């Protein structure tokens, strides 16, 4: 490992350690009450105690986020493809997308939970799919519209079919835009999967664990689950970033 990479990795780690130490000292010396801010050591202990449950809760929430993300992404890309091809559909979809973009999860979650029943994971996945739809759709559509006139002329000169044009020119050109949408959507997927759990239903995920721990005044435990949520979000973000890297290396 070179000095540069060592420094690149060590610097944020060091900052993290410093923040934790300052936090710990502030809580200990300042006598801050645990319901205001628990000490990192207390959170760490809860992390250790709750690890098996935390792991299961992270998996449950992670699965909801992943399924919702994939379903939402597929729908978004297909609709964007159709909208880029069919002008009337584009005009039809634009206001609907604007409406979806402002739908508050807070309003939707209780309704969907009632709709699908309290023992179902479906309402959470539906919420994630709705939330990720917008950024992926908007970015993909923008990417699909980036086709250069010279490429359009060229494909017409080749008498290429619509599907051939889509496959060889439009989609590969839009790929970087699709990944931009994915990057935004991946963090949104985790956040919305967690928030969706705040409004009843199954008690198996990170969101429901956070609310129940907080309701029982077990603040260090609540923070331990928050930590799990952060890790899950980072994993999702890093995964989409890695996907983008791989695809751009293949193309560049």
């Amino acid at each position, binding site marked *: 490992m070179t000095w540069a990479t060592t420094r690149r990795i060590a610097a944020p780690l060091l900052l993290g350690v410093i923040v934790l130490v300052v936090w710990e000292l502030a809580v200990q010396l300042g006598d801050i009450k645990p319901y205001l801010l628990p000490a990192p050591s207390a959170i760490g202990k809860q992390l250790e105690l709750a690890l098996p449950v935390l792991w299961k809760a992270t998996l449950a929430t992670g699965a909801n986020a992943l399924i919702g993300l994939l379903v939402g992404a597929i729908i978004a890309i297909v609709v964007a493809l159709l909208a880029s091809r069919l002008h009337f559909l584009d005009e039809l979809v634009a206001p609907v997308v604007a409406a979806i973009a402002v739908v508050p999860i807070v309003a939707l979650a209780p309704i969907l939970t009632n709709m699908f029943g309290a023992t179902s994971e479906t309402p959470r996945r539906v919420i994630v799919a709705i939330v990720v739809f917008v950024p992926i759709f908007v970015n993909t559509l923008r990417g699909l519209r980036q086709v250069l006139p*010279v490429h359009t002329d*060229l494909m017409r*000169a080749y008498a290429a079919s619509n599907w051939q044009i889509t496959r060889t020119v439009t989609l590969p050109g839009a790929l970087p835009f699709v990944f931009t949408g994915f990057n935004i959507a991946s963090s949104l997927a985790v956040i919305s999967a967690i928030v969706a759990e705040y409004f009843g239903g199954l008690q198996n995920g990170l969101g429901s664990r956070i609310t129940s721990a907080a309701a029982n005044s077990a603040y260090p435990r609540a923070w331990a689950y928050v930590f799990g949520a952060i890790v899950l979000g980072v994993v999702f973000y890093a995964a989409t970033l890695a996907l983008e890297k791989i695809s751009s290396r293949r193309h560049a």
Partner: protein
Amino acid sequence: MTITDAVPTVAAVEVAGVSRVFPGRGKKAGVTALDDVSLTIAAGEFVSLIGPSGCGKSTLLRLIADLDSATSGAVSVFGKTARQARIDQDYGIVFQSAGLLPWRSVTANIELPLALHGVAKADRSARVSELIELVGLSEFASSYPEQLSGGMQQRVAIARALAERPSLLLMDEPFGALDEMTRERMQAELVRICAETGAAVVFVTHSIPEAVFLSDRVVVMSPRPGRIREIVDINLGESRGEMLREESAFFAGVTAVREALHGAPPVGTGARGVDLR
């Protein structure tokens, strides 16, 4: 299809009384890009279209390529409608910008038309290596467009246009964005490639020396409305080496085209306002 199959009696391109009017919007009047243009290009002939901006030279090329439709008149390519010729892939086309797909390697870019038209993989790679050799890019077969210079990218575009051995090559200012040195080298290469393939060429340019150096005939056009002003025959023979650029026959051709462009012999010293590229 190879060149030798082509029936020499059928003209490569036949343009008869073609007009193209771009309709105006609202109160704005329409623009007559081409007005009653007729032109016949024989098989294997190299014809340049030259004229100031707005004379419709690119529009004429796009009509031949069936990338645009004439308002009136008829365009036929090898005796078929332009549309049928496009569907049958009777021509190869090169634009001013190379128009390569940035995510495809040089090989994959040249292969594109072959792949689109279902040529078998083995035949495809054999043809592509032939073409890469032809345009002198063997070392760059696996490079990507962004790694190539403008001239090299344009050579890839030419190789791509030649992939299906068309008997007609349509070129819309293909060297317009290149520097002078590269441009002259590319012209010499094009002369060689044309001699090897025997294809007819329609070449749009706004450089007088370029048109004279390359062509059998130079079609001089005038703008608003786009019309053919004069067709200048250039008889510089088959072997066009670099020395040709310094011969008096070449200068005579340049003068003839320039006078046709200006409508009359230029007054004064004559060297002024001449595009010497």
